[in-house]
């Protein structure tokens, strides 16, 4: 075997090992999501044995458990998974494309824009249902375009984009606070939803737009996953490697914004999930490949576990956004410290 062949074998071997490790991690994450999902379905204020849970899932009418599992727990768990995956995937796409983990849609104002639009749609325009999601998507896209346009001066510099996003964030937050203050009929719970995100009062019907968005926008992202990987090498290098940089960026951003906006329209801007999923997935994956799917899974786990903890594991009931916010806060600080110290990006 020539030296070249030896090298080829070595490369193929290493690649195979990495692929196997990747599969293992993904399987572990899937198992985590699955078990968290199961836990949410079976153990709440009361314990429902697995047999009954399965029967409810298959559509059989079961007295007692049928309501608990079918009406209360299942929609909540389903929304948690779908919203978490949407936030996680949308967030990591932003972070990779803007080459900075701090350029996450919840920090640069996209989530806030969607939330503001949803709040206005519900309070001022008295809309409800999937139309709210559409309004949120359009508004979030408009905000994204606004941020992009405002940071454009002889090209877009990442730093300027993030700062402009912070400014836009503050404006959106104020709009939300104002609209909420003008709706005295609302309870604190509703306000919490639009300020930090919550899956309280979830209905099965809400899951449909989320599922559609995940399939449609997630599909768009999956189709360009390889191009995204190459974009990490810098715009010039990516262009040299045959990636249509401008078009790819627009497509991916639109898809990411769509994911975030839909999830926000249903559950509110669940704090930090978009921001944290990517970095956590990157740590777990240790750069063995594209962190897109793992980030979605991590997002699902965060929301599932966060909601469960907020309901049953903490003194007092908290909506999931407060839990992810409070638990995510120290990690956020830690990440900034790490980013600053090493001076590198995601």
């Amino acid at each position, binding site marked *: 075997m020539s030296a070249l062949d030896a090298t080829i074998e070595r490369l193929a071997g*290493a*690649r195979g090992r990495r692929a196997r490790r990747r599969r293992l991690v993904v399987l572990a994450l899937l198992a985590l999501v699955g078990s968290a999902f199961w836990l949410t379905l079976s153990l709440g204020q009361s314990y429902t044995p697995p047999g009954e849970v399965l029967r409810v899932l298959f559509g059989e009418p079961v007295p007692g458990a049928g309501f608990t599992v079918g009406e209360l727990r299942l929609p909540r768990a389903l929304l948690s998974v779908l919203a978490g995956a949407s936030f996680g995937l949308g967030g990591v796409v932003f972070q990779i494309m803007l080459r900075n983990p701090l350029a996450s849609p919840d920090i640069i104002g996209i989530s806030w824009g969607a939330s503001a639009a949803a709040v206005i749609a519900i309070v001022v325009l008295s809309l409800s249902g999937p139309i709210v999601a559409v309004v949120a998507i359009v508004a979030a896209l408009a905000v994204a375009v606004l941020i992009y346009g405002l940071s454009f001066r002889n090209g877009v510099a990442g730093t300027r984009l993030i700062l402009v996003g912070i400014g836009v964030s503050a404006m959106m937050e104020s709009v939300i606070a104002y609209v909420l203050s003008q709706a005295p009929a609302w309870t604190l719970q509703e306000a919490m939803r639009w300020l930090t995100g919550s899956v309280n009062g979830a209905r099965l019907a809400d899951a449909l737009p989320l599922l559609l968005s995940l399939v449609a926008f997630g599909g768009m992202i999956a189709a360009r996953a390889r191009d995204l990987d190459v974009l990490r*090498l810098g715009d010039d290098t990516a*262009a*040299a*490697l*045959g990636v249509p940089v401008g078009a790819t960026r627009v497509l991916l951003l639109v898809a990411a914004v769509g994911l975030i906006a839909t999830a926000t329209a249903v559950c509110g801007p669940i704090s930090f999930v978009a921001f944290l999923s990517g970095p956590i997935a990157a740590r777990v994956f240790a*750069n063995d490949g594209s962190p897109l799917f793992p980030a979605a899974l991590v997002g699902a786990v965060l929301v599932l576990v966060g909601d469960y903890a907020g309901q049953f594991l903490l003194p007092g009931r908290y909506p999931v956004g407060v839990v992810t916010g409070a638990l995510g806060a120290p990690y956020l600080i830690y990440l900034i410290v790490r980013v600053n110290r090493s001076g590198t990006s995601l």
Partner: protein
Amino acid sequence: MTRHSLTVTGLCAGYGDTDVLSGLDLVVPTGEVTAIVGANACGKSTLLRAMSRLIAPRRGEVLLDGKAIHHMPSRDLARVMGLLPQAPIAPEGITVADLVSRGRHPHQGLFSRWTRRDDEAVAAALTATRTTDLAERPVDELSGGQRQRVWIAMALAQETGILLLDEPTTFLDIAHQIEVLDLLTDLNETRGTTVVMVLHDLNLAARYADHLVAMAGGRLHVRGRPDEVLTEGNVRAVFGLESRVVTDPVSARPMMLPIGRRRIAEAADGRSVDPQPTGSGAPATSPGWVGTAP
């Protein structure tokens, strides 16, 4: 490897509203090493970026095998022309093998899987750049010269007939500069790759290039073989610098010695050495001394 021709006609290009290049014509000799030199802001990087389609020309065209590159699909172009830009970004923790593998991107469609052919290309690239032993190491742990070789390996894995490099030796210390330029010479000879590179060091350009292109003020000032281009008159015109051109005893190529105001050795009779020598009787300085353009 198939031979490709690269031509620039009447190119006007720049950034924003200002044109840096005005009406530039250039035929890149196929299968040779071409170096583009000039003072700062003369447009050499702009020319390279226009040739690699990173910026669109306002007027004029860049022709690859007679076809305008701006109408070619990105992927097709990337299979023929590779580029090593000035500040490539290596994602944190990426290994050498992984980075070089990215070079196969233009050869992979949406659904194609990794094949042995791809592995062969990567292996060949690693071998050619002598980075095989570094394959499993993270790129951010490597030295400047090693990292540059890895980037060149990535461009090699692309298996293109033309390779453009934007200042590949800037920020490298002298040993690594020579390392990279030797490598590019190897590639040109063994694979027949057409190499076009922007260099800031005039003497290294004269030593390693078959074809030298000197630019000034957005225009092409002169081009040709190094001994034709590297003359005192041209150095004066392009860099605004007085100089003496001698033969480099190491490479037998021309070498430029800059002449400023100070540190000019006096002749034995006390008079200053005439900065405009008529013949070749001037003594050469110690070999290996590299002059730098302003």
